């Protein structure tokens, strides 16, 4: 009996010792990095959010939830939220279908496809700030794109970036232009991973081009589409670098996103407590979306 017990217990004990060794060696560095660079700053931001603090010394003026109170009903912040929503809508309804369409065209082994893939991908490689600056010149009513049109039609120059009703469409155009190539590349990769024989078999069975797309390509591209939607939304929520050089949030604060709102109303005004509160709200929205989306849509991927 004792021998049986021993042979039964030993493997278990050895396994757990191995597990512990792995845990002791590999967990602390990761945990330390995560704590110092992720968890602590977040906890700190949450703590600052309860203070009226200008960034100097330690926060002292505790004001409870007032910073969050300022956000409720604040027209500029609401507008920033709406703008973030608009970017998401345009990304999902315009950018992704367009990227998929172009990807279908350039994914095949046609002559010149690689060149077009590269051309469409180029804007994504460009730094966001540079893109914003370039488009600021492009939208200028005096010498940019609108001036070509107004000049040809003999109209007065039109300054899109100074028009409070339409300036945000400039941001949307740049976002579309800039990130479309990235999503196209995702789809190209997905398309190239699809087994050709499936499509050929369907064709032999008499499936039309649309039927092949609808019943073979699209389902097999599912994981890639779900990933691309995820990137789109998270990217849209965090959009910042393009806004600053392009519009600076203006005119009349109509083109801010949540992050540029945080920057202009928290950091540049040295209201670090208030900015932290905005950061916490942004964080909650992002985390809720990320976890919710992964649970609902990306379970099987």
């Amino acid at each position, binding site marked *: 009996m004792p021998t049986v017990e021993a042979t039964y217990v030993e493997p278990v004990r050895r396994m757990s010792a191995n597990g512990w060794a792995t845990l002791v060696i590999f967990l602390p560095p990761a945990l330390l990095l995560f704590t110092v660079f992720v968890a602590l700053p977040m906890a700190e931001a949450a703590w600052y959010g309860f203070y*009226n603090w*200008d*960034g*100097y*010394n330690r926060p002292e003026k505790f004001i409870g939830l007032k910073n969050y109170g*300022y956000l409720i009903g604040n027209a500029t912040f609401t507008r920033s939220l709406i703008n973030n929503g608009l970017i998401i809508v345009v990304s999902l309804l315009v950018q992704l279908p367009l990227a998929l369409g172009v990807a279908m065209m350039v994914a095949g082994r046609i002559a010149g496809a690689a060149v077009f893939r590269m051309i469409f991908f180029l804007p994504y490689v460009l730094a966001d700030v540079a893109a914003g600056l370039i488009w600021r010149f492009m939208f*200028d*009513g*005096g010498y940019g794109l609108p001036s070509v049109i107004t000049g040809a039609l003999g109209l*007065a*120059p039109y*300054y899109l*970036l*100074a028009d*409070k009703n339409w*300036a945000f469409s400039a941001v949307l155009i740049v976002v579309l232009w800039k990130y479309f190539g990235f999503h196209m590349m995702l789809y190209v990769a997905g398309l190239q991973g699809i087994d050709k024989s499936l499509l050929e078999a369907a064709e032999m069975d008499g499936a039309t081009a649309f039927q092949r797309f609808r019943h073979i390509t699209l389902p097999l591209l599912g994981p890639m589409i779900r990933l691309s939607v995820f990137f789109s939304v998270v990217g849209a929520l965090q959009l910042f670098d393009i806004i600053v050089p392009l*519009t*600076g949030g*203006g*005119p*009349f*604060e109509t083109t801010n996103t949540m992050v540029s709102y945080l920057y*202009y109303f928290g*950091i*540049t*005004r*040295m*209201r*670090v407590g208030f900015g932290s509160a905005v950061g916490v709200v942004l964080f909650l929205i992002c985390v809720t979306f990320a976890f919710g989306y992964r649970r609902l849509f990306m379970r099987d991927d």
Partner: protein
Amino acid sequence: MKLRHLAFFTVGLAALIVPALADTTVTVLHVSDNPDQKAVWEKIANDYNATHKGVKVELKYLENEAFKAKLPTMLQSSDRPDLFYSWSGGVMHAQDKAGFLKDITADVASVESEMSPTAVDAFKVDGKVVGVPFEVGEVAFYYNKKLFEKAGVKAEDIKSWDDFLDAVKKLKAAGVTPISVGAGEKWPMHFYYSYLVIRIGGEHALADAKAGKDGGFKNATFVEAGKRLRELAALEPFQPGYLSTSHTQSSGIFGDGKAAMDLMGQWLLQMQGPNSASGKGLPEEDIGILSFPIVPGGKGKATDTLGGVNGWLVTKTAPPEAVDFLKFFSQPKYAQEAAAHGGYIPVVKGSEAYITDPLVKRLADDLAKTTYHQNFFDQDLGPSVGRVINDVSVSVAAGEMTPEAAAAAIQDAFDQQ
């Protein structure tokens, strides 16, 4: 081999020891974009390094917005500069309250006696000196003489706000864009609002508002200033698309002769050339300077000036050499050199005689004769209220906000800080 080892070791050791023995480094952090000004500063630093063995003064540059955003963190780290650029005002008070600034009252008394008292006072907190000014400036209308002539406007006839509005109307009628303004960055528009406030309410206007007298910022002066600003903007005097124009672009528009006036600080003179399409801008003789007009019934005088006062603040942990360099920097001979070549107006008395540029000279004369000098509102009030003033100036001008709502927004921001 052995010898080579020894030599290698010795050199290595020397490399470690020498800087440690020799150099007390004094870092000076600034935001100046003016190449002439930087050249003068570099020269002063080099002179100091050459004559003071064991001390090394290093000038470091940060872009304006980056400087403002980074400074609070820098001051709390061990990377803090020893001397740094300041506009005095609200930010300086916050820095002092947080205990980052050194009290240098006794150290710099000798150099400060040579300086303009208003500039010196700007760097005092509760009577204690925390910094030394180096330049003063004035915001004024720069105008294009040829465009004025074309529209039949005589600058010397513009004395009151109504004269000014008439001039704007005449320029418009002659097909000239009367004013170029970089309202995309907002602060250029706040010059109009601030000047109107001090012309209407006089020298106590801002102090009274801060003290909460007669409703604080909601008082009649601020509301009236907003109304006057809207009255001007309603004539549509600004270049098309002014809401998205930066101040750099605006200076180029003026330099290209596409607008007759620009209300700006003295730096416009260095900016209008490089930012114009030709790269040359207007020749100096075609530019005139016009003081901000008086508002009938207002308490302010035509000789009250609005403009910045810039100086150096000393951080608490700065070595004694930093203060020593500051005194070296403030010598009259360097102020005279700056006046002659630096493209700015030094605060050392008598240095204005060395100014060669007639336009800068005119500003220096205004400042010498000033009846009251007001620091920029956005600097005076600090970043949180200051930026609100900038925002509402643009909104009021564009008719997006009523003068009453604007005044209330400033008061709200003031209460929240």
